[in-house]
């Protein structure tokens, strides 16, 4: 047997297009100034280290994990706020669904306050809102959360900066190199265009990718509105013309 066999590979991650992402340093987002590297990143094709990653089973997910309205009180009392279904699909750059991948979210309550020791904003905590949720995508890459729409909140940056309403997302994918954290904004929020964190993304069409449209087809009459937030993770390069050692 020859040591090198041409084979259909489906492994190397597509190199990240950094122009689709925020700039690392933006003076209008002050904290980024001292926390961004001066020197270029070291680029290299992905290896087994980035192409593999943790896999989480359905046993991890509790019945209320994707219901932020009820999961903090464990079903005893609902959180206050505008009830929304936040749903969408996780795909890769090859437009293939990413099934069984963990999606975690966190957010402020309806008044714009986080349940965190570092959040000193005087909007009150909601005794029935924790602010975290998680779920696994199904075989088609679909996920959904029931939650309340988070409030906008002020933050110490320039003299009077406010975050638009947003939900933080953490997505795993199938390899550690696909790991992504981002934020979902809501259609029609005038604070999006005033936010220096949003503005770290210099490509307007990429900002639009983070704005979830109202989705009345998934809203439930007399119960909740719906917003749709699709996510695309790095894909894998598909080629028939690559020599790799056998068994890899």
């Amino acid at each position, binding site marked *: 047997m020859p040591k090198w066999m041409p084979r259909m590979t489906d492994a190397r991650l597509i190199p990240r297009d950094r122009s689709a992402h925020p700039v690392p340093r933006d003076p209008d987002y002050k*904290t980024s100034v*001292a*926390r961004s590297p001066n020197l270029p990143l070291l680029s290299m*094709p992905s290896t087994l*280290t980035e192409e593999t990653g943790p896999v989480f089973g359905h046993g991890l997910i509790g019945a209320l994990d994707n219901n932020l309205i009820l999961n903090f009180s464990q079903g005893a009392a609902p959180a206050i706020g505008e009830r929304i279904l936040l749903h969408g699909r996780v795909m890769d*750059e090859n437009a293939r669904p990413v099934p069984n991948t963990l999606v975690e979210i966190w957010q402020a309550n309806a008044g714009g306050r986080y349940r965190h020791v570092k959040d000193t904003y005087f909007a009150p905590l909601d005794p029935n809102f924790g602010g975290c949720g998680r779920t696994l995508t199904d075989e088609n890459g679909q996920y959904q959360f029931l939650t309340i729409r988070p409030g906008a909140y002020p933050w110490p940056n320039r003299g009077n900066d406010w975050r638009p309403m947003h939900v*933080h997302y953490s997505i795993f994918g199938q390899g550690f190199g696909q790991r992504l954290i981002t934020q979902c904004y809501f259609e029609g929020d005038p604070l999006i265009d005033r936010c220096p964190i949003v503005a770290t993304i210099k490509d307007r069409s990429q900002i639009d990718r983070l704005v979830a449209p109202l989705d009345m087809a998934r809203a439930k009459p007399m119960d909740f509105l719906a917003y749709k937030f699709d996510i695309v993770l790095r*894909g894998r390069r598909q080629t028939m013309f690559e020599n790799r050692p056998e068994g*890899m």
Partner: protein
Amino acid sequence: MVQKLDTLTETPSQTAGPYVHIGCIPSFAGVEGVYPEDLGLRAVEQGAKGETITITGSVHDGTGWTLRDAMLESWQADAVGLYPGQDGADPKVNGFCRFAADKDSGEFTLQTIKPGAVPGPDGTWQAPHIALWIVARGINTGLQTRIYFEDEDNSADPLLARIEQRPRVETLIAKKTGDGQYRFDIRLQGDGETVFLDI
């Protein structure tokens, strides 16, 4: 005009912000009772094969200040170099761990086993290493780096070989401070800046 490609563009990153702990390690943030325990508490379970090690360190900004709000994730192979999910991998090795800088001191601790060498590109072998991913307020896209070990042979590692300025290799090498004890400090910017990866 040309034909349209049917590929998609990756969703842009946004900073994890100061409250990342609520979503990823809620118990650490004081949000108790939603999940039975935080995800990724242990890189390995009791009985994992290999040398038990503890890596401590901290994350510093460009002024030298230690971050108190950073969250880190690690991913590694087992003692013989197999990743979880590969045939024959040690079932006691989770490979994945989440840990945060201490709210007061900024110190982080990773307790695990030392991984074995793993295959690299074109028949090469990568020296034992642990992949790290660092997120925090002010970091707009999570920073990737790696921990190597000073008591391993790193001379043929294909990633370390790509670092042009040889003194910078040291920024990826954990220093042995005792039996099974290592120190790994991360400098986001400036003097001794850690090599971050685009991989």
